């Protein structure tokens, strides 16, 4: 790798890039700064934030209790729209999870060293989003206590899951995704848990961090296997993350419903997932960065890069919308054409217009450099994308279902108060887990950050180059 030396570096030749880590840091300061977030006294705002999240989580508990007592009839689903909020929210949450794996695995393989300061946090976001997503299909089964019937196990009924069904593929894809993401996250945490074990003063904390740290001592022989394992996990996660939303899109694309039966679904869903995921990373990272003063590690560079990824994936999503309409016309199929017109001009036209505003128009602001550099405006655009991606699934799922082949079976769909309570409740679950995570575990990978500071020796498989610092 050619390094930039002082003589050859000229700002004119290469536009200035903000550094990945603010200047002046050493392995010691990086360690102290990131671990102090966990080891200091709990800030007052944390109690407030966690309290609000926990309150929302209680709404979830209430909604689920009501669901268990009564049944899925409390939701808005019925004929003709048998899939509603439950599947919208499932797809929305699982999509959000994709940015975490993209950042931790794909950007690692592409040697994008800026990923280092956001990967831990984004992976945690993935895990919690997948946990929220997993709730919905299980609750939707109607008898969630029998959800284990989805798994292939020898049983007294002599039955096996129907492996030709995309819904069973989903079970395999999502459970594998959750397991592999959890392991990837944990393996990345082990050296940092050892740091916390060594740095915490309280005996209980030492034990609590010491047990999951497994006696990690940073031996060169351990790092040797560790790095290979970590890279292999990244290599395995890369096709996995692309497969997950592909399989989710099969839930629709394999069906014959107009508006679902399209070959563009897999790539369009994956791009949408990354789009939604980066928006959520920004939505969460911007406030947390301000609250914990982590501006040295999550720099302008990260904001700019994430904005660019959002812009690119957003354009792919818009292309997907355009192609859906084009296919509907070009196929010459009356039902497809009607479905496309019904989305744009039918009873849900305001949903569709808001979708276009949120996902296609507002994100074009990201073309402007000033907006990409402004935390406020990035937060603003990200919120639009969060809403837009939810509406996209609303348009795809109930709006496709509500008017199918037979006008006699048409109907309208709307979520009930219990649909909303469950949705808001999973946001509470997500935020509660997130606040516990930032309080108890290092939200930035400490050992990988050590490899990024200028006086670190090394550069390794993990950290990428250390010579990227502009002078």
């Amino acid at each position, binding site marked *: 790798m050619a390094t930039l030396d002082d003589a050859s570096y000229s700002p004119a030749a290469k536009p200035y890039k903000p550094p990945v880590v603010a200047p002046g840091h050493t392995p010691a300061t990086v*360690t102290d700064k990131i671990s102090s977030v966990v080891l200091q006294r709990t800030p007052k705002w944390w109690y407030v934030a966690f309290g609000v999240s926990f309150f929302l989580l209680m709404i979830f508990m209430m909604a689920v209790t009501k669901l268990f007592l009564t049944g899925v009839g409390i939701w808005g689903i019925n004929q003709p729209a048998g899939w509603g909020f439950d599947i919208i929210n499932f797809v929305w949450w699982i999509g959000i999870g994709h940015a975490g794996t993209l950042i931790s695995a794909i950007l690692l393989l592409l040697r994008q060293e800026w990923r280092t300061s956001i990967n831990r946090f984004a992976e945690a976001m993935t895990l919690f989003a997948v946990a929220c997503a997993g709730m919905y299909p299980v609750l939707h089964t109607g008898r969630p206590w029998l959800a284990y019937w989805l798994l292939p196990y020898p049983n007294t009924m002599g039955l096996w899951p129907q492996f030709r069904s995309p819904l069973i*593929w989903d079970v395999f894809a999502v459970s594998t995704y959750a397991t592999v993401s959890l392991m990837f996250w944990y393996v990345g945490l082990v050296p940092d848990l050892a740091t916390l074990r060594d740095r915490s003063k309280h005996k209980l904390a030492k034990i609590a961090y010491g047990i999951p740290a497994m006696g990690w001592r940073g031996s060169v022989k351990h790092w*040797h296997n560790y790095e290979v*394992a970590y890279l292999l996990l990244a290599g*395995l996660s890369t096709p996995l993350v692309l497969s997950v939303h592909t399989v989710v899109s099969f839930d629709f694309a394999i069906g014959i419903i107009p508006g679902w039966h399209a070959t563009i679904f897999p790539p369009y869903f994956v791009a949408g997932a990354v789009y939604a995921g980066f928006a959520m990373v920004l939505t969460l990272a911007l406030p947390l960065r301000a609250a914990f003063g982590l501006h040295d590690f999550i720099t302008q560079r990260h904001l700019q890069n994430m904005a660019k990824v959002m812009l690119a994936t957003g354009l792919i999503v818009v292309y997907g919308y355009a192609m859906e309409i084009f296919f509907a016309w070009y196929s010459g199929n009356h039902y497809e054409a009607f479905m496309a017109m019904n989305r744009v001009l039918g009873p849900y036209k305001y949903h569709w217009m808001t979708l276009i505003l949120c996902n296609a128009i507002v994100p074009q602001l990201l073309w402007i450099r000033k907006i990409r550099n402004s935390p406020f405006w990035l937060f603003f655009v990200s919120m639009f994308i969060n809403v837009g991606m939810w509406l996209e699934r609303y348009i795809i799922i109930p709006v496709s279902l509500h008017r199918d082949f037979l006008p006699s079976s048409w109907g309208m769909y709307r979520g009930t108060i219990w649909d909303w309570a469950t949705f808001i409740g999973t946001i509470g679950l997500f935020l509660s887990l997130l606040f516990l995570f930032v309080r108890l575990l290092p939200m930035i990978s400490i050992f*990988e950050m050590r490899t990024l500071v200028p006086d670190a020796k090394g550069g390794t498989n993990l950290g990428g180059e250390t010579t990227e610092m502009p002078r």
Partner: protein
Amino acid sequence: MSTTPHAKHPMYGLMAEFHTAEELIEAVHKVHEAGFHNVDALTPYPIEEVAHALELPRSKMPLIVLGGGITGGLAGYMLQYWSQVLEYPMNIGGRPFHSWPAFIVPTFEMTILFAALSAVLGMFALNGLPEPYHPVFNVPRFALASRDLYFLVIEARDPKFDPEETRRFLLDLHASEVSEVAH
């Protein structure tokens, strides 16, 4: 074996402390050249050059993960073939019992799952983790190995080890401190 390392040596080894990675890398080179075998370096982050200096053998991880992946893929496909073709064949929309394209997704997912499980479990197994007790933790300064200090340990069971001479040798390598590691 009758003699435990405890009986043979009063201590586990000697631990040298370095302030920069460059010093550690140089020291590891010299220790390796001097013919010590039971050597370990403990660093706050992975440093490839240390592994090169110690001439560690190639990691067995890739083979383990390959084995796991192949096992997972075969198991996934065989489970589907056996359950859908042999054990309980069902006619679903006139599709053949052995409708292999539909079996690809679970096969793929099982491949990834088994490969990833073997990567994680294999890494811990090869590293001998979890290891609740290790003598290096008896040195109080060692807590800084997970912050910004670099350590080199020569074990007492090394044939070339001599408490006095090895200490002098380590101090000559610009170690800022050399401490005894108790068992």
